[in-house]
């Protein structure tokens, strides 16, 4: 058995698990951001969170499908990572501004 036979599946497994975790993290941050933005747009707090929660699963599905359909793994990681950072940082920035 070559070392390559072990490394290649391990790399694939790490990519799959890591990308799923990153997509989930990004979707969770997008849920928080969507809730906050829709609340600021005039929706009641409860409605805003409920809408964001329902959208969260659609976000996650789209991110997973998009991430796994990229030919270059690095692009999927960079773009999902960037989106996560953006969705995580925006509410904090907006709260500081407010």
């Amino acid at each position, binding site marked *: 058995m070559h070392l390559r036979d072990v490394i290649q599946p391990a790399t694939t497994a790490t990519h799959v698990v890591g990308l799923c975790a990153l997509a989930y993290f990004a979707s969770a941050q997008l849920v928080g951001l969507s809730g906050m933005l829709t609340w600021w747009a005039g929706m009641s707090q409860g*409605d805003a969170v409920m809408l964001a929660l329902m959208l969260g699963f659609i976000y996650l599905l789209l991110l997973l499908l998009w991430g796994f359909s990229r030919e270059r793994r690095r692009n999927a990681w960079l773009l999902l990572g960037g989106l996560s950072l953006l969705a995580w940082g925006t509410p904090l920035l907006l709260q500081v501004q407010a």
Partner: protein
Amino acid sequence: MGELHTWAGVLLGVLLFAVFWTGSLSVFDKEIDRWMMPSTRLHWDDSMQRPSLDRDIRPLLEQRAANAPVWTIILPLERTPFLTLTYGSEESRKSSRDLFHPITLEPLAKPLTLGASGFIYPFHHNLTLRYKNIGAWLVGIAGMAMLCLLVSGVVIHRKLFSEFFTLRLHRAFGRSTLDVHNVAGVALLPFHLLITLSGLIVAFAIYYPDAPQHTYREQVQSGVSAERAFLGEALGRIRLRAAKEPGELAPLEPMVAKAEQHWGPGSVYLLRVNNPKDANGNVLLRRTSHSSVTKDIDNFRFANVSGEVMGRFQASAMVNTWNFIAGLHYIQFRHDALRWLYFLGGLGGCVVIATGLFFWTQARRKKQQRHGHLGVSLLDALSIAGVCGVILATLAFLLANRCLPMQEQLFGLGRARVEILSFYALWLVASAHAVWRVMRDQRLGYLHAWREQCTAIALLAVLAVLANWLTTGDHLLATLRSGNGPVAGTDLCLLAAAALALLAAHKLRRRVPQEETLEVAHV
């Protein structure tokens, strides 16, 4: 997309099958409960006179749990034709539950089983692994994988409409398996999308627990949990503290009458009395969701002592969107034909998953012959244990329910726990059998394992019907004649399962010589 479809299916197919199987059974959980709890095989329809809350039911509560912190009264309904009272003890808020005849109010014999609603339904959504919601997370991961499978399935099957009409059952085994997978997958695609997405959305609190943090930051700063504030505002779930001063509970009937003025006669089905003997206690009334798809979470709250309305919760339009999605998944509406369609749709999902797994292992077998890997054999064993094993386990659960003696304690364990142990024990035995068969003969062992387990399914299903007859006297003709739908339906489904399993075993038996011939030709 093709890889995503294959690997998500292969890695999570077995878990998905278990979730779809138990979900399909949960469509009829109350009916299976009637089968498993013979003392509750009663009849109730909404035109019958409900027992009086103050004259008949309150004395039962006072007598059994005068000092309990919470009383819950669930009035008889068509699918649960008995009165249910639950109450915590002084030491613990964990509820104990008593059932009563809906008319005479005689206590019913303790069921000594969790039934389908207490075991199969929880297994469907959390695999009964409650610690830190591990089971719910596993089910959630499987659910999201199912959504990915459905969407990627559409992408990889570009000839979607032609495949919808292509079912070649008489062609080669692999071809016909793939056709069944495609036809069932395409025909039931909208149902599977709906049921999977709604299943995830109803459990939002587990999957996105931090969602309210940013929106409710003001409440968080003032020391209130964001989650609690959100649940109170959106879903009307609030907790009121006891005053620790004695108070006398006001009559319950006028409260129900007041609520039913708004909701319509006979619409209240649940009353929860929080701190019944406290000056700050309250009574929460809930209405049934029988007449609409939307799950009704509206409630009336009355002051314990004065009997005055403290508040009325009405869900907003947005929350009712979520209630509609939840209602689509929970199926609490009263519509037998739709319930059967849900059941068949769920079983269709099982067929799609099982044929997908079967096709994948078939297709990889040729590769295995060339490279001599064990992987496909192990996946074969896993598929057999996951598909036939879980069905056998369910039948063991039903059979144990009818065959174990009606004693609270058996072998030092509660009877209900022994039933659950039977479920897992037979699943373990089925898994061991599959591994043994497949490893002993890596060429044809999988066919023998499928065939033997299908035969075992047929045998156990027939035994379950016989056991029901022998232990209760309710044989199929009697239940059909008396119109006992839940018991007759369960028996008929068991017999249908036995017939299908026998047919599958017969087809697999014919398949073994063909495979042997093919192997010889290949060599």
